[in-house]
């Protein structure tokens, strides 16, 4: 990534995400939205997929968005953004666009990205639209009542993967969305966390500028108070532990090169990572886990890190 903001003092001051929205106290996605809007600046159009952020920020006749904003449906934010981007191109060519260098940004949750929106995301990436697609990942369909998604991790409790005697929460592993996006050979894709603001804003800005070349993608990890079942003052702490335990590594895919970012760049050495249990134990959705189940999750995590290590050598 390019470093646009070196210290906290460099962070953009202008607020472009209005208070008074209906997001939960302690919402990780709300923190992400604030920094996304500040970092992309006012000359951008937002296409939002149906989801937590969408329903909580636009209760008619109010809106939290100071940007031009469009929500159409759940599965098509990338297609809508494709249309917006193409329209701006054409209108510019005809001298009918008066807003200058306007960026197009998608904001979608994990349901709208991993699951129902995967096709339109793939189409947008393949067609190389100059759009920044930002996934805020809270690992389930939260606003509809905590149903499991393709992003929900194994063994997590959700309302559709209840913990019983025969089934212990979600049965399957979390989908590797970054791998899917990288396979489209996009110029830039990165993971980021609301616990690492400087890293996150620099990635947002880098990804935004790279849209000159084609589509870019950010996977922002955003904890959910009601869905993950933890106290609302623990959001940033849990997001930080996700990175420190190696569960959610910070890395970027920049023109075919994978680079791990601090602190994840030290985590190839397993001993530098905190035990996964520290991340899991703060969350009610993992309260039922046995030591054997945690050991299984850790084993899978090790395998994932070995995969990242191999990717890094490419």
């Amino acid at each position, binding site marked *: 990534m390019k470093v646009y903001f070196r210290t906290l003092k460099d962070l953009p001051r202008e607020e472009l995400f209005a208070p008074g929205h209906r997001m939960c106290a302690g919402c990780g996605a709300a923190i992400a939205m604030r920094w996304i809007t500040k970092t992309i600046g006012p000359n951008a159009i937002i296409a939002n997929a149906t989801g937590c952020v969408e329903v909580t920020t*636009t209760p008619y006749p109010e809106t939290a968005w100071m940007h031009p*904003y469009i929500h159409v449906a759940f599965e098509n934010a990338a297609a809508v953004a*494709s249309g917006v981007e193409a329209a*701006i191109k054409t*209108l510019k060519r005809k001298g*009918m666009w008066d807003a200058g260098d306007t960026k197009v940004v998608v904001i979608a949750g994990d349901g709208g990205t991993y699951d129902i929106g995967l*096709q339109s995301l793939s189409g947008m990436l393949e067609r190389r639209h100059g759009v920044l697609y930002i996934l805020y990942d809270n690992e389930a369909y939260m606003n509809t009542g905590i149903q499991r998604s393709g992003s929900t991790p194994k063994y997590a409790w959700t309302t559709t993967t209840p913990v019983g005697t025969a089934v212990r929460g979600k049965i399957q592993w979390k989908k590797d969305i970054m791998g899917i996006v990288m396979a489209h050979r996009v110029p830039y894709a990165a993971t980021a966390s609301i616990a690492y603001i400087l890293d996150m804003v620099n990635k947002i800005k880098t990804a935004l500028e790279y849209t000159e070349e084609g589509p870019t993608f950010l996977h922002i990890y955003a904890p959910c108070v009601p869905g993950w079942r933890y106290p609302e003052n623990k959001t940033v702490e849990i997001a930080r532990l996700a990175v420190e335990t190696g569960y959610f590594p910070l890395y970027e895919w920049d023109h075919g090169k994978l680079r791990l970012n601090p602190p994840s760049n030290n985590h190839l050495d397993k001993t530098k990572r905190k035990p996964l249990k520290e991340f899991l134990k703060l969350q009610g959705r993992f309260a039922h886990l046995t030591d054997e189940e945690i050991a299984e999750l850790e084993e899978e995590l090790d395998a994932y890190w070995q995969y990242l290590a191999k990717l890094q050598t490419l």
Partner: protein
Amino acid sequence: MANGELNAELIHVESEHSALSAVVGASAAGARVFTATSSQGLELAHEILHIASAMRLPIVMAVPTRAISAPISIHNDYSDVMNARDTGWVIYIAASAQEVYDTIIQAYRVAETVNLPVMVAYDGFLISHTVEPVELNNEEEVRRFLPRSVRPYTLNPKRPVTMGPLASPDWYYEFKYQQVLAMKEAYKVVKDVDALYGEKFGRSYGVVETYKMEDAEYAIVTYGGAAFGNAKAAADIARERGIAAGVVRVRLYRPFPTMDVLKVLEGVKALAVLDRAIMFGSPAEGPLYKDIATAMFMHGVDKPAVNVIHGIGQRTMYVEDMYKIYTMLRENPRKEVVFMGVRV
């Protein structure tokens, strides 16, 4: 576009759902947009049909109509458009290649006047995959007919707006009622635009087209090219054989031209509504029949009206079949549904 004659962006979408989603985005950003689909594609895009009209975007879409799976059929009937008839789009059904061309130009003017999307439907295969000569207008004259109007609300960072919000029960109904009013306005605008187009380019069609209806006692009411053409040929034969036959073609399907349809049917003793789509389990299975029966009932008109379902999955509709409809109307006028051309 390959020759650089059209200054536009072409988005090669991965699905019809994304096609309509992309034109929604582009239209919201202030661009003029066009797309086309039919059959399963229109079904896939169905969700966005409702959203495009409710967001009041002036999208124009061509729909060469086709049958719907299963079993899969690539042939023509009107099942696809009839399944989209209540999505808040203005819907024309054209009957010739020339009319399709003229109607698409009219459609932009209508769409941009009433802020509603417009569908221009016509027989898939029978019109879309056959060849007819079409008279083209002068490009500059078309541009003058369709001046770029500045829409007050588009996606622009200089004038930010939120589109597609969440509406509570306190607000939702008002949004929907505005669509009802817009449709009522569209009825007038469609007529005005057609008249103006006639003045400028010498061709206009009205909202309802008639054939030998001046003194007709028996009428076939239908839509689309094949049904209308064959009904006209049958009316000629019927008249040679002493039946005062006429044909009515509904060109504007939504908003439904209730008063115009009732007016042309005033003098008939009995009518047949020829439908090319099936509404399974409905009191009468034909969609146009339902509209006409409702129109007649609401205006106190009671006369024999038979619903003929034909041409499903492009089952051949013979002129002789249409002639039989006239004899049926004369000899045994009644109210019932007849499935014609099917092996039972």
